[in-house]
């Protein structure tokens, strides 16, 4: 069975390879956005060299990391699953002798790999070239980052699975998906680093699942997390990952039942 899922992931990866122009366009968009925000940040830091514990270098890195990671962990505007529900294709997917959630998980994992190599990496490299973003020097930082990134990516898959699968029950699923994506983007640090949130909002954000999508790996990358804080955040990531995955699986099971009983 594992073989099957690996194959699904591989196919998804390969399928993305065709969209070269779209990827290039997306890459330029990411780099463009990164540049705009970088200018903004440099201008902001004219007033003071350090804010909320971040130096200008830190914030620039965060920005470019966000741009690099966003397509991998969030991919807001991802409606593939919703479309198969709308079109009815999902019924044949649900009748396949494989687990519905793991099937989509593998697909998205394959796509995430593609985005890591062909979007994430080039985006961050442009940040390094254009704004001297720089990378951490310590191996242990890289290792922890990789772990956190992986957790975040898997969390992201569970999240987008959820806001798509509600299309089984909600007619206005697309609008809900749009808002879900925007909220996740905001609270994960996609608009601005979570560290700049007003304290009351920060307190809330720390406990939301979105924090683990982008902010936690990013802070590890910046070397801002250590000791107790580090393990706490990683634990929160893990817990949310488990929770959302369980919820997603429950919902998938409910959807399967619904289809079987009602015939879609």
């Amino acid at each position, binding site marked *: 069975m594992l073989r099957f899922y690996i194959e699904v992931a591989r196919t998804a990866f390969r399928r993305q390879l065709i969209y070269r122009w779209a990827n*290039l366009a997306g890459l*330029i*968009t990411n780099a*463009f956005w990164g540049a705009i925000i970088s*200018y903004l940040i*440099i201008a902001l830091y004219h007033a003071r060299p350090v804010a909320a514990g971040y130096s200008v270098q830190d914030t620039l890195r965060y920005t470019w990391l966000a741009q690099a990671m966003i397509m991998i962990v969030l991919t807001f505007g991802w409606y593939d699953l919703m479309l198969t529900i709308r079109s009815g294709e999902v019924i044949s997917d649900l009748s396949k002798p494989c687990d519905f959630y793991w099937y989509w998980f593998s697909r998205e994992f394959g796509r995430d790999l593609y985005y890591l190599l062909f979007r994430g990496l080039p985006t961050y490299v442009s940040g390094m070239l254009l704004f001297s973003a720089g990378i951490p020097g310590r191996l242990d930082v890289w290792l922890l980052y990789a772990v956190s990134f992986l957790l975040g990516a898997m969390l992201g898959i569970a999240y987008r699975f959820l806001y798509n699968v509600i299309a089984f029950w909600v007619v*206005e699923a697309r609008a809900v998906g749009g808002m879900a994506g925007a909220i996740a983007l905001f609270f994960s640090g996609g608009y601005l680093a979570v560290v*700049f*949130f007003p304290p009351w909002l920060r307190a809330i954000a720390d406990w939301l699942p979105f924090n683990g999508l982008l902010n936690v790996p990013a802070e590890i990358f910046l070397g801002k997390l250590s000791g107790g804080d580090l393990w706490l955040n990683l634990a929160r990531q893990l817990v949310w990952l488990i929770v959302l995955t369980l919820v997603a699986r429950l919902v998938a099971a409910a959807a399967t039942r619904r289809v079987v009983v009602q015939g879609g």
Partner: protein
Amino acid sequence: MLSNILSDLSLYRRLIGMQLRTQAQYKFNLLIDVGTYLFVTTMEFFGVLFYFGSFKSILGWTIGEVALLTATASFGFGLAEMIGAGIDSFDVTIRRGEFDRLLLRPVSAFIQVIGSDFRLRRLGRLTQGCIAFAIGFVLLPGFHWTPAKLLILLLGIASAAAIFVSILLMSATLCFWTVETTELFNSLTYGGREMMSYPLTIYHQLLQRFFLFVVPLAFGAYIPVCYLLDRPLPFDMPAVVAFASPLVALAFTLVAGAVWRFGVYHYQGTGS
């Protein structure tokens, strides 16, 4: 010539009226779309505002001033997004081979293209603009209006809309040659718009000159707002330049029109 323009405008009014009627059929969907868009743009806006919790200003621009700038940009470019919706989806028209039909009618192809869609849901961005204006003025207790300032603001918004629609038009004209690069130019277009929400001075000198003298988007938001806030204009331009926004917009529009006509001419020479 004048009667041509008038009849084209009346035709545009009718085409848009028809669009609105069709979209109004789906009131519920429309409301949700507007709401979602409002939500997303407001979130973006607050994202910027939160920076001011840690930083006092952006190169001297305070929170209220930045809010005003964002509001002006949102308004002008939001208007353009609503009006220029037909131009934005021109690549679809070309892909479907429907442009021939437009040429077979005894009226301007451009009016038909721009009249083919009108995105009411962009009202979400305009609403966000209003919120931003409100916040801005609340945070700028020292601000007082003069008739000149009001005029500049209105002209600025109108200019922003005209300039942005022109950019959309030139971007659409590329579809006559290839539809492959549509996404790329979309991101450049919308990226440029995004840049106008922040003070022009944060960008590299070259970029500043670009957005003033090549693609004059800055005349749609930054310049008028500088005038409103009694701030110096970039490159030591005299304040009166703010009144030139409409002229700049007009010139740019004429350029876009020429590019479009060239595109149509090319289309007629080579087929689809």
